[in-house]
């Protein structure tokens, strides 16, 4: 028991290029006092330009390293079986023109799609009908109904994304945050399988 080392790999770690990665950067460690600081300082990887921006450290590699340096120690791995190291290569600034283009695209696109939707479901006829039901008068442009409708449209979308309540009336994440999380998770899953040479075994057929 005294010689057991527990490690838990972190999910994602960001490092700078040409930096050494130590065990304490990529994993949480529980061990005896004497070897704890030595374990923390154990160099796991040195980032080189050839690594590109994603490095996967498998827990097997880490266990192998620990048992090589501390032969009389038993390692117990808990949690994720690998760490994704993301090398931050000089953050490029956001290109303003590209951003404006995307913004304009989304703006025009959503304006056109809502108009198509209205035509598709005969929203105009429905509005005229509602106006007639309530007032008993015929009106080809019931703007009194349609202008609040238009603003309500935007309000409804903001409500859905929960940005209206920036103060956060509850702890739950908004659907968009969940969606971002799911997307990031699938990306991580992809690199874990594809960038990690240990997790795939192929026949050499060349």
């Amino acid at each position, binding site marked *: 028991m005294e010689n057991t080392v527990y490690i838990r790999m972190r999910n994602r770690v960001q490092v700078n290029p040409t930096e050494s990665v130590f065990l304490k950067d990529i994993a949480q460690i529980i061990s005896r006092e004497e070897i704890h600081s030595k374990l923390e300082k154990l160099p796991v990887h040195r980032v080189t330009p050839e690594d590109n921006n994603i490095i996967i450290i498998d827990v097997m590699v880490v266990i192998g390293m620990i048992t090589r340096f501390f032969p009389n120690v038993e390692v117990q791995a808990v949690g994720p079986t690998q760490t994704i190291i993301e090398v931050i290569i000089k953050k*490029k600034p*956001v*290109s303003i023109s*590209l*951003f404006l283009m*995307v*913004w*304009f695209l*989304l*703006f*025009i*696109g*959503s*304006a056109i*799609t*809502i*108009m198509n*939707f*209205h035509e598709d479901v005969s929203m*105009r006829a429905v*509005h005229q*009908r*509602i*106006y007639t*039901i*309530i*007032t*008993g*008068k015929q009106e080809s*442009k019931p*703007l*009194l*109904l*349609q*202008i*609040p*409708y*238009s*603003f*309500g*449209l*935007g*309000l*409804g*979308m*903001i*409500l*859905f*994304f*929960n*940005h209206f*309540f920036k103060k956060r*009336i*509850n702890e*739950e994440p908004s*659907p*968009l945050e969940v*969606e*971002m999380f799911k*997307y990031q998770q699938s990306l991580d899953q992809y690199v874990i399988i594809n960038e990690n040479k240990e997790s795939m075994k192929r026949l050499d057929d060349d």
Partner: protein
Amino acid sequence: MTISIILVFLIGLAGGLAVGAGFVAFLVVLGVIPRLTQLTKTMKMIQLYEWAVVIGAVGGTVGSLRDPILDTSAFITVPIGLAAGIFIGLLAAGLTEALNVFPILAKRVRIEDRIVILIMAIVIGKIIGSLFQWVYFIDQ
């Protein structure tokens, strides 16, 4: 005669059943009601919300199949229009297609932290597009 009445009755009932079930399934898929209860913390009232949807759907059916005239003030259409707009907005935002686009787009343009600005583009686009259509476009 009796047979045709029964037949028409059955066909009407079957059509209503199919459309009603489809309508509810549509609402469930887009998650509008869960989202509203989550925002307002009224999970306990969810059964009453179901009734609101059912009564609303039946009322809408009556309104569109019969020709009721209420003869009241035109200003009553203001809250009705607003509510209709908010509901359609929730539907539009709930469409998974729209939801899936944002993470990818935000990563490409590298503005993960300011994704609100992209949402605003869509929201303002919807408002302007709708206003443009009702005020100007339909006259052309």
